[in-house]
């Protein structure tokens, strides 16, 4: 089982659309048994798959283990693709993870027990799934630290700005400090507008200079925004569109690097 996490400290950079499309491609085109966990209390990924953002017992039951992840899984409309829905209680997940890990300053230390709780919860899914996609909320928190520890690959959508490069540097530095398992980082430029000179310069330069930046870029396209209207992956409702082609290329590049 390979765990992919879409992560960025910033919101509105295309994490959810990326998670939704990659998870669909993994299931429908690569034939993998895939599950997407919508960790964002806003529930955008759940909305895209028309699943109610509700988990019985909330995040507390899942984190404490009184309800197994297995119980929370919902089938999507697509073969081989399941979803663990968001729940509004996920907004308190930091606290839940901390208390589940024993709390206290010692356990809350970087890389400590609470930071690895998510890994433990995901482990049983290996019997049933080939790929897990984690759609993370935008933050730096114990949740994101958990995600970074659990993931095999961190997929980082970046808006082509100077600041975004700094964000990537901070992330790679943070991950390189992990003891033991360290996830691969694959960043890619999202919402790229080739008409803008700055976008062109940054995407062209960084893609060639930095190994962890993908050659594939996802353009800013209205078809991607339409996903929330269609409530479906763009690869489903517009499979031949340039948006679908771009996500397909990203998935191919992602697999060629890690698998």
């Amino acid at each position, binding site marked *: 089982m390979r765990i992919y996490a879409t992560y960025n400290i910033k919101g509105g950079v295309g994490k959810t659309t990326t998670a939704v499309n990659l998870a669909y491609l993994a299931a429908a085109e690569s034939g993998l048994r895939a599950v997407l966990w919508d960790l964002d209390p806003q529930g955008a990924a759940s909305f895209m798959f028309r699943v109610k953002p509700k988990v019985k017992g909330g995040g507390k039951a899942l984190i404490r283990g009184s309800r197994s992840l297995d119980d929370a899984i919902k*089938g999507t*409309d697509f*073969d081989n693709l399941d979803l663990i829905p968001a729940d509004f209680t996920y907004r308190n997940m930091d606290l839940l993870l901390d208390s589940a890990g024993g709390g206290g300053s010692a356990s809350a230390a970087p890389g400590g027990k609470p930071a690895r709780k998510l890994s433990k919860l995901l482990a049983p899914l290996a019997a049933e799934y080939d790929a897990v996609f984690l759609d993370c909320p935008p933050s730096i928190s114990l949740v994101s630290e958990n995600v970074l520890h659990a993931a095999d690959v961190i997929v980082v959508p970046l808006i082509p700005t100077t600041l975004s490069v700094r964000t990537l540097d901070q992330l790679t530095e943070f991950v390189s400090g992990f003891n033991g398992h360290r996830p691969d980082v694959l960043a890619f430029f999202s919402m790229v507008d080739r008409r803008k000179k700055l976008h062109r310069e940054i995407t062209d330069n960084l893609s060639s200079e930095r190994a962890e930046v993908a050659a594939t870029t996802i353009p800013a396209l209205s078809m991607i925004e339409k996903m929330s209207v269609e409530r479906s992956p763009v690869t489903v409702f517009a499979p031949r569109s340039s948006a679908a082609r771009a996500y397909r290329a990203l998935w191919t590049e992602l697999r060629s690097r890690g698998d």
Partner: protein
Amino acid sequence: MTPGLAGFVVFGDDAPAWTEVIAEVQAALDQGFVVVPDRGGAAGGAARRTWFDTFDWRLYRAGLILEYVAARRGGELRLTSAHPSHSADSAPEAWEITQPVSGWQSSRPQLPPGLPDGPVADRVAGLVWPRALLPAVTVSSTATVSRLLNEDGKTVARLLIEQPHLAASQRAALPPRLTITEVRGYPGQARRAARIVALTRGVLPASETVFIDALHAVGRRPGDYTNKVDAPITATMIAAEAAAIIMLRLLDIIEANVTGVLHDTDTEFLHDLRVAVRRTRSALKLFGDALTLPAAGRARLTDDDVARFAAEFKWVGDLTTPTRDLDVHLLGFEETAQTLRAAKPDDLEPFRGYLAQRRVKEFRALARGLRSPRFTQLVQDWRAALTKIAKSKRTGKGAATGRSGQPQPRPADTAITLAADRTRRAFNKVVKRGTAITPASPHESLHDLRKRCKELRYALEFFAPLHDPAEYGKVVGDLKRLQDCLGEFQDNEVQIDEIRTLATAMLAAGEAPAVTLLAMGEVTAGLASHQAAARADFERRFAAFAGADGQRRMSVLLGGGGER
């Protein structure tokens, strides 16, 4: 899509009636869900499936179902447990193993060594060997899938409509099948959909699979062949009628196997045919006289008829012996070759080649015999004679009449008395011959005892429906262990003799390399050692069966028998 939660079958006389019912189901579901076609679903489309099993249903009896699903390129073998999980709460959970295959010819028998490597072959090869997998029935079907949506437009269940029909010459349509499948996390919605379907007029819960329905449509059922006698006799039946019914059942087995023998589909057709012939001969010897008893209103045979049929069945038995003996050598060849210590397994290859060559020749003679007018006439005459006896009703002189007005046989003429008398006689013979055997007795005395034991075993099996199952099990268990010991003793001796004869013949034909003769010598030494071990075990086995406890068990069985 998860496996079917609930399966239904549409009933009605014809296709138009079925179409009407399906339309009603869809209309009913429309009331509770938004129903849309699922065009991209994997379960839809056309499919062609052929189910395979051995002639004696080894897979089905082991709780397995094997099907080949044809695809545009290659195909797939699917092995499933025969008990769908939704059939009963207590049923074991259903499982499925699949294996992609290419070049599989679904109309042909498949012998286990020819199965393509994979998980399905691994699971079934040992179970079916040495039998061939035969196509039982082929069904083509078209399936359409509809998605059932909730108010958010989310798929919460699916409706699968499958329209199967028999493939090949029959082309007969089978009743359509409707299946509601659950989407994970929405069990309540699937149950609701299933309730709606169940309440629609013209729909019944599917009690059988497509496979079983298709078999029924071609006049078959799973397990419709067994080499067990299991004749439908009762304790109060007239003895002659019971005897005829038992022998008719044996004739059914003989006839059922003739085609398989002639096509040389697998070695066990001949084995079963041969056993049924041997049983027939034993039955004639044990109670052939019952067929000759005079009684008004009842057909009967003369003593000469019985003697003629006995002689003819001996001819059939003898006809089968050479080929079967060679089959036994060839079937056990690998195992034998692995036991060699001094010689190498490859040293025996010329011997294998010689055996195979001999078998071709002997099989030709066997096939000629089974295709001959003599065999055809024997089978026809035997069936006609037995059918007359089995169907005739005893009336008039010598027959008592019961309260119902039905003729009642005298106790002395009933199946139960015949069973007790003839089984007792056979048992006494075994006890007498076996008791006389000492460590100094010649081999022939053990061979003779083996034949008497076979007769006794057959007598027990013929009349098994009349015995108490628990007592029967005890007696047969001890007898079987004694027979195994005697069989081991004699089979090894026969094989040693045969190998010697074959070695001489190979030498004469210039087909016996020295290493092969040495290896054959080593094989006979191994057989002699097994034979000696069996001989050493004889006294213990015989005492367990025919000692005081064994005699008491037999008395209980024959004295306390009652109709089941």
